[in-house]
């Protein structure tokens, strides 16, 4: 009985949904603050993302004329649920209690859902900017998703497992994979940047071209949930990369008692995700937006090639070790 309660607590409070929401808002703050500091500004206060969400929740909720009310309302919630579920498998204070062989595939699938839902949103809202933005979202998905998956395949092959926790354990026994597979790590970071539609890959929601892309018609709580979802995807994505390439929250030595180990693991998780965010935020602040055809060229010519090259290297190395 107590076990079930612990699991519910894990899923809903810490490090589940509640923690995820709070941490996502915190990361948004860090992201905006880094951008502001690079731009020579002061930037928003700590509570700013929270205030934004509360305000949006309290605003009028408009459904444009001729749009399916229930469908439009369901999309942000579905996206939210997908990302929240994905995060359950991402190790935060140690191995996730929900972990199973193959959870990496599930996480990747669930993290793709918000993108596809954005595309659907673009189509159902009957707004031309949203529709063009939706088309761009899905075009972009086809460009970055393959290199991104290939890059995450590298750790899986090296560790010989589809389980996030086993890849972590493998890194504990050997070296962290960011050193062993530097190309894959870089490709994964670029893929994550594109997945989260951040500059230079914010093509679908390019403000100066498409107002806000698929987001254009979102108001009030739908906008609040959707924004929150993208921030949560940032947490889940960077947590995933931290686990696969940087060894996750694992500590090199076993700490006693267990709560201390958890605490230190949590600290490591926070540091690693913040480190990844720092890279992503600096890239965002230091670049302009590319065009979709330029992204297409870049994605297939360089990104996919690099990812495949990395896989080949991994296969050779693994073959040698196993032979």
């Amino acid at each position, binding site marked *: 009985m107590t076990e079930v309660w612990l699991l519910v607590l894990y899923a809903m409070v810490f490090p589940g949904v509640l923690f995820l929401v709070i941490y996502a808002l915190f990361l948004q703050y860090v992201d905006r603050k880094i951008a502001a500091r690079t731009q020579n500004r002061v*930037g928003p206060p700590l509570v700013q993302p929270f*205030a934004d969400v509360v305000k949006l929740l309290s*605003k009028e909720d408009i459904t444009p004329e001729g749009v399916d009310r229930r469908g439009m309302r369901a999309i942000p919630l579905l996206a939210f649920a997908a990302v929240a579920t994905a995060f359950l498998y991402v190790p935060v204070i140690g191995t996730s209690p929900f972990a199973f062989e193959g959870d990496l595939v599930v996480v990747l699938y669930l993290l793709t859902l918000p993108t596809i839902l954005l595309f659907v949103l673009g189509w159902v809202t009957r707004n031309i900017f949203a529709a063009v933005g939706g088309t761009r979202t899905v075009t972009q998905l086809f460009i970055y998703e393959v290199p991104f998956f290939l890059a995450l395949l590298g750790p899986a092959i090296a560790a010989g497992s589809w389980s996030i926790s086993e890849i972590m354990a493998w890194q504990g026994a050997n070296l962290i994979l960011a050193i062993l597979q530097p190309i894959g790590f870089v490709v994964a970071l670029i893929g994550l940047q594109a997945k989260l539609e951040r500059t230079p890959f914010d093509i679908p929601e390019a403000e100066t071209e498409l*107002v*806000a892309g698929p987001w254009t018609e979102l108001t009030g709580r739908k906008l609040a949930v959707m924004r929150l979802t993208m921030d949560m995807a940032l947490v889940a994505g960077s947590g995933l990369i931290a686990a696969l390439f940087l060894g996750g929250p694992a500590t090199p030595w076993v700490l006693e008692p267990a709560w201390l180990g958890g605490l230190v693991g949590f600290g490591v998780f926070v540091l690693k995700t913040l480190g990844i965010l720092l890279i992503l935020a600096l890239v965002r602040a230091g670049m302009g937006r590319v065009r979709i055809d330029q992204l297409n060229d870049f994605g297939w010519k360089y990104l996919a090639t690099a990812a495949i090259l990395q896989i080949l290297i991994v296969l050779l190395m693994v073959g040698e070790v196993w032979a």
Partner: protein
Amino acid sequence: MNLSQRLVGWARRKSPWITVFNSGSCNACDIEVIAAITPRFDVERFGILAKGSPRHSDILIVTGPVTLKQAKRLRMIYDQMPEPKYVIATGACGATGGVFQGLYHVLGGADRVVPVDVYVAGCPPRPDEIIDAVVKCLELMDEDAKHGGKEWRMKAAAAPPPVEVTA
């Protein structure tokens, strides 16, 4: 007021998002509004963000006199904004039409088309004054929350409602 209302009031004060609409101005007000988001004035400190979609914004900043051609577009943008929404008219032109008052292609101040809550004087107002106008607008928002809507002000004002309706 109960806790949730106070929380909402606080959040609205902390997170006013603005949309700038040029209803026929000479650009001077526009560049001063944009200057307010750049490093020297940096309104993101106060949570103010400039948003492209009127669907996302709380405060509409109208710059300039309303030309005949822009009048219905201005109304359309205003109608797209979700409640609660506020309008700031910048500059002498936004208030009355300024030097363009009475010209054949100018309707007049922004209040001929949309209900204006705060007027900013100046030609153009400095960015500091525009920030101050947003702050005044937020105070007004608080007052409105206490009165449960904007009607108390509308009744107090002697002027007829500013919307000009033609079939």
